[in-house]
């Protein structure tokens, strides 16, 4: 969660910039990819739900995995696309203050907002990783016959929240006035 304030003396600024841009590009591409995949997962979930209904109603052989698989896919898709949604600035904000404050004050306000968001998301990401670790090492499963491993959705929650945090980090750094011009890059 550390923000590279000043480039280290030993490294030429251009190298830092290149590395940073590469990193920012990676984060963006990862979030775009997982965003799309998450949408596909929702489509698949619709299919799973329909399949479950048909198997139960027409073939009287209910799935013992349909419900939990659907829930898990929903959770995976929510967290894995949180970074994509942030990239698109799709997480809704209350923008009433926009019209009251000056443009400059608004920039500062949004920067602070992004930083605070980063704080929250990084905390949840860290917490999700510890939960994943616990579920994995203790071998938690759900209480159903299918009994899928709980670490799987926790893992995706942890990855998703981490990717979201990195996305927030990239956006915050690129908005920092000190660094503007140095790291600034067009957001697609």
């Amino acid at each position, binding site marked *: 969660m550390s923000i590279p304030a000043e480039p280290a003396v030993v490294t030429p600024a251009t190298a830092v910039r290149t590395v940073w841009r590469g990193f920012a590009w990676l984060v963006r591409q990862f979030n775009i990819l997982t965003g799309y995949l998450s949408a596909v997962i929702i489509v698949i979930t619709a299919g799973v739900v329909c399949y479950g209904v048909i198997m139960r109603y027409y073939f009287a052989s209910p799935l013992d995995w349909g419900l939990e698989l659907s829930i898990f896919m929903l959770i995976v898709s929510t967290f894995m696309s949180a970074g994509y949604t942030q990239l698109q600035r799709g997480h809704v*904000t209350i923008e009433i203050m926009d019209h009251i404050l000056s443009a400059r004050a608004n920039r500062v306000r949004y920067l602070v907002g992004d930083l605070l968001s980063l704080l929250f998301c990084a905390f949840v990401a860290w917490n999700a990783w510890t939960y994943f670790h616990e579920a994995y090492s203790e071998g938690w499963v759900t209480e159903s016959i299918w009994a899928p491993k709980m670490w799987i959705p926790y893992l995706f929650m942890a990855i998703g929240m981490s990717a979201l945090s990195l996305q927030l980090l990239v956006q915050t750094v690129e908005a920092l006035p000190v660094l503007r011009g140095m790291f600034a890059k067009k957001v697609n």
Partner: protein
Amino acid sequence: MDTSTIGLLYAGVTLLLLFSGMPIAFALGLSALVFMAGFMPPPMMQSVAETLFSELNNFTLLTIPLFVLMGAAIGKSRAGADVYSSLNAWLYRIPGGLGLANVFACAVFAAMCGSSPATCSAIGSSGIPQLVRRGYSEGLATGLIAAGGTLGILIPPSLTLILYGLAAEQSIGKLFMAGVGPGLMLVLLFAIWVVFKYSLERRQALSAGDEHAILEAEHFSWRDRMKSLPRFLPFLALIAAIMIAMYGGWATPSEVAGIGAAGALLMVVTLYKCWHRKDMDAILTGTIRESTMIMMIIATSFLFTFVMSYLGVTQEAAQWLVELGLGKWAFFLGVNVFIVMLGFFLPPVAIILMITPIILPSLNALGIDLIWFGIVMTILMEMGLIHPPVGLNLFVINGIAPDIPLSRIVWGTLPFIGLMVVGIVLLCLFPDIALWLPNHF
């Protein structure tokens, strides 16, 4: 620090964060985190991820992403525009006809879906752009969808009525029946407002004398209308499939969302030939952005609720209200105000779970009919979904129509909150609006 001070502080910090420009989801979460750190035992901090996870680990929530997908499939493809142009051909003579169609569409959808944000999203995705295109003000277009969407929890099936029924030990069947009359009453009130407001906007546009989409002269012959009729068919088939699946014992109300989503997708791919990359991109990215945004708010607002419940803020306030020892109508009024205030921050489910057990004995003692009260409470919670600062339906609309500022949505929705108040007054004067059906069947 005593509980009420903590409660006020909690509300204050949350407001501050909400207005800081943070996304709502993270503002609610961070505020919860701060109060966990400040006022709860240290191990609680380790339960944050599990708390968020536990809220999403819930099958009934699945209806939201799936109905969002359904809405996006129709709204982001030609299907939505198509059905609205045929609707327009039929309704263009009625002032506000298309607005009325949207209110009715919300009501029909509410009968297939137990969740308000899902109803809002499914109808709004195509409804809002179509209304705005035909000259409705953004405020009216978004307001009527936001308010119409709240019918999702009043018209059966309803997730919140089920939870109320369990908490208040009332018949869910009777509660569902009791929701029908008031649901229709609100539809009627909304419809009247839409016609009135539309006419007003049209008159204003006329007197301004400028060009305005609302004034565009249109004419459709009966021949045009008949020709557009087949375009309704796939939609009618989809609605029929969903209704049959739900009331015919194929699927639960949650599963119906999957059928609706798959059906809508199939429809736009086969009938509207939207299988190209560009079409699919629009549908998929639209779905994911909106669904994730809503689900994150739902998850963090549960974290927010958890902290509020742990600190006992809501419970203590409810207890205080009960101990005032008010008479029947004073208590009823107090509870109404209280629920509206809780609606500032809390989602309906949380309100039901936290306050029903505490106010129930008083409601009983004062002889207030619990079925009737459940309906009133539902309408109050519907108001909470569309009033700021935290109103889930407002955010859903903002997600569907990102170009329309939230403040305009809020102003457009305000009159509908007034109509809901009128609805509650009518329910107090004529309890049979709710109780006739359950008492006779």
